[in-house]
């Protein structure tokens, strides 16, 4: 039996989570979560942590537009995802919601435009 203390990152409340893990490192119980999402977060965080990536993409005219992965990707891929993002050159006419890369790095996530060119 091992214990891990986490801070939930799902919402601004930031619950302190107490996770009990068995010998194999599999979570067996979660305490301190104010909602069910906290339990899911704790279980994922202890087995395969995930993060949403937000960044900017360079446009062909030199400006930048904001983008995000439309769902969380494995945390270990975050810097690889940044490399992909920084290789892109897109049209400054991109609209909010446009998909720039589908299945980025083989994940379920797409890279989507979140705002207009400033």
């Amino acid at each position, binding site marked *: 039996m091992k214990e891990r203390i986490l801070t939930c990152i799902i919402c*601004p409340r930031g619950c302190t989570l107490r996770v009990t893990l068995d010998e194999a490192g599999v979570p067996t119980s979660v305490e301190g979560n104010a909602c069910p999402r906290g339990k899911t977060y704790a279980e994922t965080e202890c087995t395969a942590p995930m993060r949403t990536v937000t*960044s900017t993409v360079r446009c062909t005219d030199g*400006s*930048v537009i*904001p983008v995000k992965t439309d769902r969380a990707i494995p945390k270990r891929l975050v810097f690889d995802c940044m490399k992909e993002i920084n290789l892109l050159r897109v049209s400054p006419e991109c609209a909010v919601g446009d998909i720039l890369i589908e299945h980025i790095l083989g994940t379920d996530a797409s890279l989507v435009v*979140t*705002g*207009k060119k400033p």
Partner: protein
Amino acid sequence: MAYLSDEKISFGIVIVGGGPAGMAAAVAAYDAGERDILILERDNALGGILRQCIHNGFGLHRFGEELTGPEYAYKYERMVEERGIAYMLDTMVIGIDKERNLTAVNRDRGIFTIKCGAIILAMGCRERPRGALNIAGTRPAGIYTAGTAQKYVNMKGYMPGREVVILGSGDIGLIMARRMTLEGASVKAVCELMPYSGGLARNIEQCLNDFDIPLYLSTTVVEIHGKERVEAVTVAEVDERRRPKLETARTIPCDTLLLSCGLIPENELTKDAGIPLDAITNGAVVNGDRETDVEGIFACGNVLHVHDLVDYVSEEAVIAGTSAVRYIRGESGRDADIALKTDGRVRYTVPQRITSLKDTVVYFRVADVYKDAYLVVKRGEEVLYKRKKQKLAPGEMETVKLTEEMLKGDGGELRLSIEMA
């Protein structure tokens, strides 16, 4: 944007600022039945500071989904457009008076004056700069407020530096620690003068811990080194009275210092109009309608008090927007005058006064970290409300709902306090 004739010099409701507060106030006023609304925005687009906050975490309360800043702003921009609410961009308001005459300037019209039925102040806030912090040392390039760096990286596509120290652990500083790291910079340290962080716990976790960036509490920057460009900063721990312990001083080489040392509501217009401000919030004193001490002038969002979450800004803007509509229709209806007082542990409340007997949500912040403490609302010695709070921290805005039942009764004063278990 609706067409505005040059001859139109009066509006029902004029909103100063087209950020999240201004847009939400405008939409709420429209939805309450008012059509003669104008938003004045000094930047070249609506959206305010959200445009540069490209990270996610916005909108969970308001929209039930996790949005980035630009997406949250875009939703409100669409609501403004769909309703055909008029707005002027690149337009700077330079003065308002107590009779609600507003003077603004832009390239098309030059200086012009508008007669307003009601005014909603929604100018937001700005960051405390180096000059306000009294940091010793040279004055080289490479010192930015965190928000300025955020604008460079997220809107202009420039990296302000490669080796970064951040002073202050407010949320923007934490967010920028992650952002600079993702873009290839090395963030050496985040130093916080206070013994606790000013940012949300989730941001400590996902912006610092995820990238092994150290957070040094009770630590500050005592000297900046470098002639043309920042070359290093000297940091030192501070004692309980926040004086640096120089024997703990050490120098961290870096080329950039980011400052995330607090936000100040931008109230020059408010002050010039003679509207009384609260010395703690640095925003106007308001009643439950978010009306200032000057009739017909309302305030909401970060110009009133600094919020943690844009969702709360929108919520407050709805109050201001709908109250402004009631005001111009002569339906404000004041049937009480209750001052909300605090005990020092509660630093401030917004509103500071309640002038109508109806359920009122009061926002407040505490002065220090309190664990297992009680939030108590009293009239004189009579306890009207008592609720245990596991943890209260200055970085997290709290709310308490004062019911009509609690507001009724003798005495023009209620006191919010924190009592230890």
